[in-house]
């Protein structure tokens, strides 16, 4: 395996990482997963350093796992949400970032409803920037924790057949996961209503289909969240019709297929309640992996040197 994987200063896109870079983060995450099993879940790696979490969009699991990840690395953490902050008073992203940069943070973690926000922030600060979701563009740490979860379960993604099902058009998770899964050797098919599969999505290196007729060929079924507002925009006529065609449930799944979902789940829409709670579902593992993988990302960005690996 290549050991020449480039070091990186920001994590904006899965395109920032080659396969060796992804594997290095996952290996690091394995050691941090062990920390999360201890009674004192903390290592001193980032003691005295500051991490800013800048969230312009509502988030439960991403924001909480980034916060926990930073705290378990002993960093000082500042959480800023758009509501109630100067952002609410009309301050521009640039001004906000330049103000926060005055605190000399080691890293800025940003979630934004707009594609390219993390990349812009990286141009305005000397801090390392982690993209915690930018519009419908990318969500690279979600993809890394999904690869981590699958690698733990399957050993490797090489040759694994993964179907991503649902609203691909509006999903940053889908985009980062197509890139990450294929980079790790998996074959990816996206499936969903033709109104919610982007034209020319095949250019990302996946196949696309409008039906679940061949779902049995999938070893992993990655289910996307179906947002209610898509109905009012006529992307699908009704939730009922969507569920009838695309819901992942016991009737559609065969034994042995693994089911994943980035959360939060609409029970009874994209996934049946029974499937969510079945042993085939890895949804709980994904959430658990979130903290270890985000610790690994922050560690690789801010410490990174292999000689310090023993800290964990």
């Amino acid at each position, binding site marked *: 395996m290549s050991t020449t994987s480039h070091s990186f200063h920001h994590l904006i896109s899965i395109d920032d990482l080659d396969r060796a870079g992804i594997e290095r983060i996952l290996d690091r995450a394995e050691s941090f997963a062990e920390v999360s099993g201890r009674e004192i879940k903390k290592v001193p790696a980032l003691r005295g350093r500051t991490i800013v979490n800048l969230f312009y969009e509502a988030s439960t699991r991403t924001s909480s796992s980034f916060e926990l990840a930073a705290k378990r690395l002993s960093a000082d953490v500042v959480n800023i949400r758009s509501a109630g902050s100067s952002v609410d008073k009309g301050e*521009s*992203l*640039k001004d906000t970032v330049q103000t926060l940069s005055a605190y000399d943070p080691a890293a800025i973690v940003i979630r*934004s409803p*707009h*594609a*390219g*926000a993390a*990349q*812009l922030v990286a141009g305005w600060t000397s801090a390392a920037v982690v993209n915690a979701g*930018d*519009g*419908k*563009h*990318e969500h690279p740490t979600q993809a890394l924790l999904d690869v981590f979860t699958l690698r733990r379960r399957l050993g490797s993604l090489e040759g694994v057949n993964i179907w991503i099902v649902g609203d691909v058009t*509006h*999903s*940053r998770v889908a*985009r980062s996961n197509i890139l990450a899964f294929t980079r790790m050797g998996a074959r990816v098919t996206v499936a969903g209503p033709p109104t919610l599969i*982007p*034209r*020319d*999505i095949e*250019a*990302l290196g996946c196949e696309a289909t409008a039906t679940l007729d061949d779902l049995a060929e999938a070893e992993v079924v990655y289910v996307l969240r179906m947002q209610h507002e898509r109905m009012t925009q006529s992307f699908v006529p009704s939730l009922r019709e969507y569920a009838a065609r695309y819901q992942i449930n016991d009737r559609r799944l065969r034994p042995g297929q693994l089911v994943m979902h980035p959360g939060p789940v609409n029970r009874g829409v994209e996934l049946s309640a029974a499937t969510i709670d079945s042993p085939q579902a890895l949804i709980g593992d994904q959430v658990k992996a979130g903290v270890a993988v985000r610790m690994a990302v922050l560690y690789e960005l801010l410490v990174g040197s292999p000689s310090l690996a023993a800290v964990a």
Partner: protein
Amino acid sequence: MSNLSGQPDQPDRLFAAPQPPADLLIRHAHILDPRTGLDGTHDVLVREGTIAEIGAADALEAPDGAETLDAEGWHLFPAFVDPHVHLRTPGQEYKEDIETGTAAAAAGGFCQIVAMPNTSPTIDTAAVLGSVIATARSSARVPTGFLAAITHGLRGDELTEMAELRDTGAIGFTDDGKPVTSGGMLRKALQYQRLCGGIIALHEEDPALSGDGVMHEGAVSARLGMAGIPSVSESTMVARDGALALFEDARVHFQHLSCVESVQALAAAKAAGARVSGEVSPHHLTLTDEAVRSLDSRFKMNPPLRTEADRRALVDGLRDGTIECVATDHAPHAAHEKEVPFEQAPMGTTGLETAFAAIYTELVASGELSLATLIERMTAGGALYGLPIPRIEPGAPANLCLVDTAARWTVGEDGYASRSSNCAFHGRTLNGRVMLTVAAGAIAYRGPLLVAQPTARQR
């Protein structure tokens, strides 16, 4: 006099601040004017703002008081005409005003420009039009004409007082920035054109198809997760309005065409006998949506940059004359407006200062377009509106553009004459630099590298 617009020439609809007429002897320039057939090294003498004489190299003497320029190795073209710019006056002078916009035009080699009415307030009444004409008369560095709105506030639901706007000085009409979505509303404007004259220019976009799109819909928008503007949102409207133009025997001009389907729709309308014309921008001729992968908001404009196949179709259409002219769609925006995530940034790129160099570098050097065709298409835009065509011939008003085609320069490194810097070519190294622009007989721009060589009393 007849021209492509089917109207009498209307130079009286161009406005500029009075400038002293030039007395100038340009020596040894390679003169290229596809309309007069000049293509070789000559001397040109300008007296009192008029081309007095064209002679063999070294054949002409500078009269007393005239400046002599040695243009050895440079090209002299008829100065360019831009039928599509945004000068942002009134209301958005922090982006551009008539003085800075026309300075940018002069720096780009233009001697005539046509400004769009999507200002704040909209140029939709005689009073607003009169005020921008007055401003142009006091501050425009090159002759500037104005289009007035087709509908009040560009809202698409009520015609402006088109006849009075024509009497006040409007060259023609457009709701540019927005389409005239209702075919019925456009049809009434086309009928009314019979009364008041004036070309009706159209920004073609079906908002039901473009929706909240921010870039071309295709492989790149799929990758970036940004809402797309499909090519058919433009081409279906070109097809519809070509049919309406034919039905009403109206004169229609299609602005900033961007895709292969629109070129086909324009060609079909012409073949059917419609009196229609089209324009294309330097950025659509030279860039594609691949540039948007950078997420740099300088590449955000409407219509959006499209694919390589679209770009090639536009070049082909310009070469074969389906598309008559180049138009920059110069659209200045302030830095703080563009320094935001791509989806939030306003649409538009500046283009006056880079138009010739961008196309010359990307298309002429590669052989996609001949230099003579480029000069023809960069000087044809005004004639569509009935404006006089710049020509290099004795007796013509001096509208000249002196270009060092060998000069390499990096866009933006010396700043811009425009008040704004949102140029899609920013940071690129281009070939071809404008050294001198003479517009309507007066020197409108003198490049920083051009050392004046006064021969006698003045300066």
